[in-house]
């Protein structure tokens, strides 16, 4: 029997742990040879190499979590996943009517263009909004998982982003269908049915997804420390929608007012979306630069903000 008398210590707040994997010598064990070393990490970030390796290795968990979250969400609804399309479609019609009323009516051809612009803008904006809102709540919602398992917490935010992407995908055929039907009735409408510039869409979506994921990391971290962040976010994103080129077109702003298109992290991508889908043009150089800069800023700052604090989550949840 050992009796141990230990002294008190005035210690700083926790720092990062280090994780390494080494092979054990031949035949030394019958179990899976995996050595992990957990130590204080004086720098705020853990070693990014092992962290990103673990993140990549466990990506299947994020995909499955997203799949099951979607399954759970629509399990008890009679219309099921139809709501994924119905919800943004109905919202788009409401906004279209609102815009048409405010403008005092419009010609049928421009009316279809306005509807198409609002549709694709709203679908794209909702993709970003869902990524940010669901990502922001993902850490506090995953409390028990965080208390029980060691894994890169960024996977929970990634899972929300994947879920938002799957919700976004079916809205594209809805947009195309509306435009096809619209063009049958109003063939003079200039919205392209097929354009070579549609090839820019995947790049725009990827950059928007990275930007939204980075922002989700920031808000998810804030939500751990301040639990009303996600509530505040629901109002903020509504204002964000009005400040984005969704209910209005980028060409409506001139001069220095155009800055509003670029100081908004989602602005360049939404402007580029309108250019490609409605105008049938490639995104402008400024839009490209804006999209790349925001994606880089969001992922670098969001990643640093989140990863440097994620070891603290288990005591804050």
């Amino acid at each position, binding site marked *: 029997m050992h009796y141990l008398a230990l002294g008190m210590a005035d210690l700083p707040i926790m720092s990062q742990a280090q994780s390494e994997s080494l092979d054990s010598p031949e035949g030394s064990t019958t179990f899976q*040879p995996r050595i992990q070393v957990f130590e204080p990490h004086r720098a705020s970030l853990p070693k990014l190499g092992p962290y990103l390796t673990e993140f990549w290795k466990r990506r299947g968990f994020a995909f499955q979590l997203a799949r099951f979250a979607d399954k759970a969400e629509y399990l*008890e609804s009679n219309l099921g996943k139809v709501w994924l399309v119905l919800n943004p479609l109905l919202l788009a019609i409401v906004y279209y009517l609102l815009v048409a009323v405010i403008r005092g009516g419009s010609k049928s051809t421009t009316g279809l263009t306005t509807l198409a612009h609002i549709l694709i803008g709203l679908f794209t904006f909702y993709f970003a909004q869902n990524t940010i809102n669901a990502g922001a709540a993902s850490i506090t919602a995953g409390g028990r998982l965080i208390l029980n398992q060691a894994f890169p917490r960024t996977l929970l935010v990634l899972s929300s982003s994947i879920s938002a992407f799957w919700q976004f995908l079916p809205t594209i055929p809805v947009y195309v269908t509306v435009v096809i039907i619209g063009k049958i009735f109003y063939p003079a409408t200039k919205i392209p049915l097929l354009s070579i510039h549609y090839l820019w869409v995947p790049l725009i979506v990827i950059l928007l997804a990275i930007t939204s994921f980075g922002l989700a990391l920031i808000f998810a971290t804030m939500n751990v420390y*301040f639990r009303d962040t996600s509530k505040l976010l629901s109002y903020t994103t509504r204002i964000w929608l009005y400040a984005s080129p969704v209910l209005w077109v980028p060409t409506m702003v001139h001069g220095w007012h155009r800055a509003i298109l670029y100081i908004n992290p989602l602005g360049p991508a939404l402007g580029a979306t309108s250019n490609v889908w409605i105008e049938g043009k490639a995104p402008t150089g400024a839009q490209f630069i804006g999209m790349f800069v925001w994606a880089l800023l969001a992922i670098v700052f969001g990643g640093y903000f989140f990863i440097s604090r994620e070891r603290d989550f288990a005591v804050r949840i």
Partner: protein
Amino acid sequence: MSSSQMIPVKTASGMVDFPSDMAVRIEDLSITYKVNVDTKRTLKNAVMRASKGEKVRMRTVDAVQHLNLDIPHGSVLGIVGANGAGKSTLMRSIAGIMPPTEGRIIVNGKISTLLALGVGFNPALSGRDNIVLGGLAAGLTREEIDARTDQIVDFAALPEGFIDMPVRTYSSGMYGRVAFSVAVNMTPDILLLDEALSAGDASFKEKSFKRMRELCEEARTIVIVSHALATVTELCDTAIWLHKGKLIAKGEPEDIVDQYLAFLNVGKLPSSMEDM
């Protein structure tokens, strides 16, 4: 484990030798964290406080203090201690969930944890779906989980059809059985259980004990935190007593439990020995 080899392990302070028959080595471990003592942690409160020039009130918690401990492969370690002793924090630090403030933990082997009952379970999903989620969260591949699913389902022994029903329809016992079954059937090298044996009836408890003994025979390592002291004396070959983050004693489970009960000033009452 009789013949121990040394494994060179890279640490922040350089290479150290780690005995191959050791599952966990804890060296001078201290874990301290700060908690916000404000009732509501909201942005609104933070802004209000900042406008009044008030600081956020924080309290420092010394959850674990200068702990040294070796846990060899194939051993069953029981941890006893009153509420707030640092037992759960220690378990989470071994699992890599909470980082050390000082010291070092070296872990050799794959860890499976059951530190929070019903971990990550989505109540709207079926037990079967939650088994998949639990396995993926533990780092298993989908193929590995699929290969173990029948075994996990059989072990949980839920009433017929329940495994494919939403978890929200489960009783708390059934919920705990699935969680426990996932944890013990992931073929862990090191199994960490925090108050996990209170789930289930007497028959399931016996089955759980049997499964844990099997794991020990396979040279797996188990660390158990339990307020049911009979569990500690019955299952463990070593026990430690933690109090306010400090290691007070280490030794034979019977001795440690006796000391702990004497400290608590209670005898071997059924309420202190068994889960209630």
